[in-house]
């Protein structure tokens, strides 16, 4: 046991060296961070002398990965949003109604009158006048079903059609609901990401959580309210046919219609059809511009599908008004003057130039397909984060020194070995944290301090065991050998059990708690490594050189 093969010795020292080297950048945090930012900027083409100078602050041959600081240390905002995926079902059902109506219209002689009935938002109910025609009506509506476009839903159709007495009930099939949810989530994630990127903050985290949630963490931002404003809640643009203009907000709209207010004329309401002609999803471009009178406006362009629908609609409805609706308010309701082909147009209203710029940005980034509800929000100011870092630093140093002194007093020279190993241990933790790009949180610092306390445990186990073996007077070499051998099972069992709890914490926990689990888990690995390899190697080297007749542990 006291024989260490040379390749093992080399491997142990190399591991320590690499680990410590990886930890070094964290000692020069600001400098390395500026270096990294500058290098990233230069890669993107911003090759300014300033960036060059920043990049030169840190030699490029040294590692430059840093431990990420969590929001509780850096300051910033954290939001957990739930996407109301069911919103999309409603839109889908509304869009299905005109299709169903148009399909059934030619069959009126058999099915009788067709009327839309009030229904839950994710259903479409259509009453037909003549129950005898139900079979034909069902077949006709079923023919509208399209195959679901997703990997899991192959072979399934998007709508399910059934009959209840004289009412046709159309719902989205389960497969289609799943596929729709998935699309809604992808879209929402993408849009949130684009909006946050437009503001250009450092390293935002935008992650999907579970089936319908998005976790958004933006370091350095002033408050969660600010972040919410950037994300916006809906900004949903649609173009709807106008049924009526009214001054009475309580007027009865009729099935399939709704009453919504005008954005800039108080007391003015519009009755519009809920099913939009074209929606914001079909927009490909939006720019601030001016109308022919020099008023601020937003010009936009549709994609091919949107352009065709918009073209057909305007060709069929010359002389009637249509409404441009933004977040359930009518921006304007111009009368269609002529067939608008080509799919581009202009939104005018009483806008300021600034408003049109913002509106264009919102439209360009795309509307969120569904509403976001915020389940959790946290803001930590940068000063509080800095205070926590400072307090954490001082506490860690004091804890460290206290443990070092105590170990020296208790075990003398062997204590010094354990202390060197402990310093290497903390270095290795930071090295590993940087390597895996883990996030350090305040509880994470507590995890490191705890590790400092517990890391010596493995050494203590060994040293105590050596003391015991010395009593049976087997000679120092044999005592050291037996000490390591017999303490090994206790060290492994004790650390495996603690490691199990760290893993469970990591899997089940979130945010700061997970940060704690990471440092605790890595700390266990490094402390076992340092105790059974590094300390032992030091003891062995010392023993080989001195060959003492007696030792005191």
């Amino acid at each position, binding site marked *: 046991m006291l024989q260490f093969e040379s390749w093992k010795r080399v491997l142990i020292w190399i591991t320590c060296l690499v680990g410590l080297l990886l930890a070094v950048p964290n000692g020069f945090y600001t400098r390395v961070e500026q270096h990294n930012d500058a290098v990233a900027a230069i890669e993107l083409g911003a090759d300014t002398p300033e960036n060059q100078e920043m990049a030169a602050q840190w030699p490029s041959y040294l590692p430059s990965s840093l431990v990420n600081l969590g929001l509780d240390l850096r300051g910033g905002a954290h939001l*957990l949003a*739930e996407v109301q995926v069911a919103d999309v079902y409603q839109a889908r059902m509304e869009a299905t109604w005109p299709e169903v109506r148009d399909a059934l219209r030619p069959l009126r002689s058999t099915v009788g009158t067709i009327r839309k009935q009030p229904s839950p938002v994710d259903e479409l109910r259509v009453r037909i006048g003549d129950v005898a025609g139900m079979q034909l009506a069902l077949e006709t509506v079923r023919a509208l079903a399209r195959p679901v476009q997703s990997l899991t839903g192959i072979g399934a159709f998007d709508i399910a059609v059934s009959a209840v007495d004289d009412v046709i009930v159309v719902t989205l099939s389960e497969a289609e609901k799943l596929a729709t949810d998935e699309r809604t989530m992808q879209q929402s994630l993408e849009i949130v990401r684009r909006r946050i990127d437009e503001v250009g903050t450092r390293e935002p985290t935008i992650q999907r959580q579970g089936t319908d949630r998005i976790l958004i963490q933006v370091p350095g931002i002033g408050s*969660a309210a600010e972040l*919410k*404003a950037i994300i916006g809640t809906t900004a949903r643009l649609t173009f709807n046919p106008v049924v009526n203009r009214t001054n009475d907000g309580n007027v009865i709209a009729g099935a399939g219609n709704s009453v919504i207010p005008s954005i800039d004329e108080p007391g003015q309401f519009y009755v519009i059809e809920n099913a939009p002609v074209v929606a914001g999803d079909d927009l490909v471009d939006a720019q601030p511009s001016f109308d022919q009178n020099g008023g601020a406006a937003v010009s936009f362009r549709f994609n091919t599908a949107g352009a065709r629908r918009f073209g057909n609609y305007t060709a069929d409805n010359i002389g009637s008004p249509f409404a441009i609706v933004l977040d359930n308010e009518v921006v304007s309701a111009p009368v269609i003057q002529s067939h608008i082909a080509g799919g581009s147009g202009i939104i005018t209203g009483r806008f300021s130039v600034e408003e049109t710029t913002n509106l264009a940005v919102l439209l360009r980034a795309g509307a969120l397909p569904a509403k976001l*509800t*915020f*389940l*959790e*929000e*946290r*803001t930590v*100011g940068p*000063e*509080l984060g800095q205070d*926590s870092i*400072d*307090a*954490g630093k*001082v*506490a860690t140093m004091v*804890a460290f020194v*206290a443990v070092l002194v*105590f*170990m020296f*007093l*208790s*075990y003398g020279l062997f204590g010094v070995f354990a202390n060197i190993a402990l310093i290497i241990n903390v270095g290795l933790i930071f090295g590993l944290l940087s390597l895996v790009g883990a996030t350090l949180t*305040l509880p994470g610092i*507590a995890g490191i*301090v*705890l590790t*400092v*306390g*517990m890391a*010596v*445990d493995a050494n*203590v*186990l060994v040293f*105590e065991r050596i*003391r*015991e073996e010395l009593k049976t007077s087997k000679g120092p070499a044999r005592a050291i050998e037996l000490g390591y*051998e017999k303490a*090994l*099972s*206790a060290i492994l*069992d*004790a650390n495996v*059990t*603690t490691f*199990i*709890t760290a893993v*469970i*914490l990591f899997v*089940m*926990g979130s945010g*700061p*708690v997970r940060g*704690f689990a990471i440092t*605790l888990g890595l700390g266990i690995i490094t402390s076992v490594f340092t105790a059974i390899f590094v300390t032992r190697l030091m003891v062995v080297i010392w023993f080989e050189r001195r060959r003492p007749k007696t030792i005191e542990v």
Partner: protein
Amino acid sequence: MRLKLVKENTNFDFFGRWKLWLGISLLMMMIGFGSYLYQGLNFGIDFRGGTTIRTESTQPVDIAAYRDALEGLELGDVSISEVFDPNFRDDQNVAMIRIQAQDGQEAVTVDTIGVLETALHSIDPDMKFPSVESVGPKVSGELIKTAALAVVLAIGAVLIYIWLRFEWQFALGAVAALVHDVVLTIGVFSELQIKFDLAIIAALLTIVGYSLNDTVVVFDRVRENLRKYKKKPLAEVLNISINETLSRTVMTSVTTLLALTALFVLGGDVIRGFVFAMIWGVIVGTYSSVFVASTILLYLGVKRDWSKTDPKAGGQYANIDA
């Protein structure tokens, strides 16, 4: 000369009064559990939803004035407490304000926070709000379920591990000690009404890990000594094992407590509750591995004839010659 916290060759009798020790533990657990039933835990917003705002002002905190300022806002249950910390500057006066989850809302709205901040600015126009946290009832409900599940899972996983590495009696003893530690920790949080939030769950699991660490070291020695002294009665073997590992037990507890105490005093008020839980856990965990885990093991008894059957029955190190 070496610093020795435990003198060599101790021979304390840990089981002479085992009924007394177990009785004390049971009594403590009952008090803790009773306190939990009677006044409940002071749950943070992680577990019951709501909003906390940390305020920082150069003027001294006048809780009554804060309360008056927030009175008319109809926010429901509002609690205000001043925060003290040795790290604060002289003119740094910090308070925590907690409001309950608002009806019909998940996370608090921007408007509500705006109104609150305006009201507080009437006391001190320069007041700052270094942190605002809001958790909706939906998430808090899930968090509490996940947290409880995590603790149960951790204890379950450990039970299985020790059962595989030792014998089922050891596993039950270790788990009894863990339950003891968790109940006492929840009890002290309930008794002192310290804020119980997500971080405390992390602390609880760490206590589980630490207590186990201690128990396993003792058990490892018990396993070894059971083979060494085949004729001695179990109580004596247990006593020898605990005495032999006593020095290590004390050493590790002291180094861990040294580190934790530094964090408790200097680490700032944000994690003080968390660190307190761990300090308490280290003390209780050390006690329980001697007086609960081993006592239960004594009570359950152990099969003594391992060596006659498969030499590897005790795990991969069981065949090491003792």
